[in-house]
């Protein structure tokens, strides 16, 4: 396996249905003999998963025989949910998590945003239960048609 393939299989610790490549936080992998440099970018500034992801990348590379692994943080351009791949969006939906819509620059919206369709029945008659779910990047919703509670990855 190439160094990129190894790095691309690392799973996001909070949304383990997505790899860091699906999530769009794996920016670049340079391979120079046995020496590998991996560039990743944080989702949120305070994302506690970054240290775990960094440790995971290093561990996987070591297991794959790359002994000299350097994981660098890249801050620019900032990550947005638009970096989540089509594959990643499909996988989120399959696992009952409503994927984010496109990111739009908004003035003060006062909470009026487009509806989030239910990943189970497709109804757009859904209610936001909480702006934050188990992680900062998700919100909790409930479908008023099929009663399914679900998570939604916020457009950010």
């Amino acid at each position: 396996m190439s160094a990129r393939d190894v790095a691309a299989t690392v799973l996001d610790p909070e949304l383990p249905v997505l790899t860091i490549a699906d999530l769009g936080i794996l920016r670049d992998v340079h391979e120079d003999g046995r020496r590998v440099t991996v560039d990743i970018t944080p989702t949120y500034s305070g994302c506690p998963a970054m240290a775990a992801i960094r440790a995971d990348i290093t561990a996987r590379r070591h297991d794959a025989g790359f002994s000299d692994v350097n994981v660098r943080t890249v801050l620019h351009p900032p990550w947005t949910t638009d970096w989540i791949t089509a594959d990643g969006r499909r996988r989120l939906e399959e696992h009952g998590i409503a994927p984010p819509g496109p990111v739009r620059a908004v003035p003060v919206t006062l909470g009026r945003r487009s509806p989030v369709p239910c990943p189970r029945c497709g109804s757009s008659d859904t209610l936001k239960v909480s702006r934050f779910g188990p992680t900062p990047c998700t919100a909790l919703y409930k479908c008023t048609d099929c009663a399914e509670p679900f998570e939604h990855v916020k457009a950010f």
Partner: protein
Amino acid sequence: MTAYDAIVELNDHTHWAFGTGFDDPLAGIDTSVPPGTDTAEQCLALGDDALIMSHRLAEWCTNAPELEDEVALANLALDLLGQARLLLSRAAQARGNGETEDTLAYLRAEHEFHNVRLAELPRGDFAHEIARLLVFSTWRLAVLERLVDAPDPVLAAIAAKGVKELTYHREYAAGWTVRLGDGTDFSHGRMAAALEAVWPYVDELFDSREARDEFDAAIRQVLEEATLAVPDVSSAARVAGKAGRDGVHTEAMGYLLAEMQSVARAHPGATW
């Protein structure tokens, strides 16, 4: 073998992100600072604002009116703590005298902190926190928007990331301001009183007319929807013309630092 051993055996301690000391938030980033910029001062001031505000928001854990809002406030605190770590790490690099984000956060004295006084005000009721958050996030958003093309590329990148987070914080605060202001007579009164309590600390936030105009326009829009008026109160007194940015703080700051720094000071150099 215990369950803990079984897990850690997998790939040694690397499995535990927080069992091995915190990671450098700027790991691998070019540490050079463009000459002739005031990156150190800017990063320190903005980092202190984020750190102290994050501490106050975290105090809502187990104190918020509803679980959902407790989670929300803790998450906003986490965003700001993340910004504080990046900014204080950058300030430490720019100062270049061996400091780290930790020594800056845990080992400075009150007069060495440059956060605005708004951030350190003691926790009041929920309306008070919402009023403070509305003012803080609207102001900080206007400030960071003006830093996305700062000469220091690291500060510029931190600002660009922060803009997205603060937009969300402002939305949360604006939503509650409208709900409380345009709610019952009782909630309207509490929200109006909260705005009056934080408003004296607004003037010292601004050193740019442009940012102030943007702030005023956004606040006006929210308060109009919330059927509230912009408070007509005088600014909080300064001490010999000095306030938070100059290291002159309110009485609350010493108590806050005593709590925030006590463990680090009692166990110098400890990792956990």
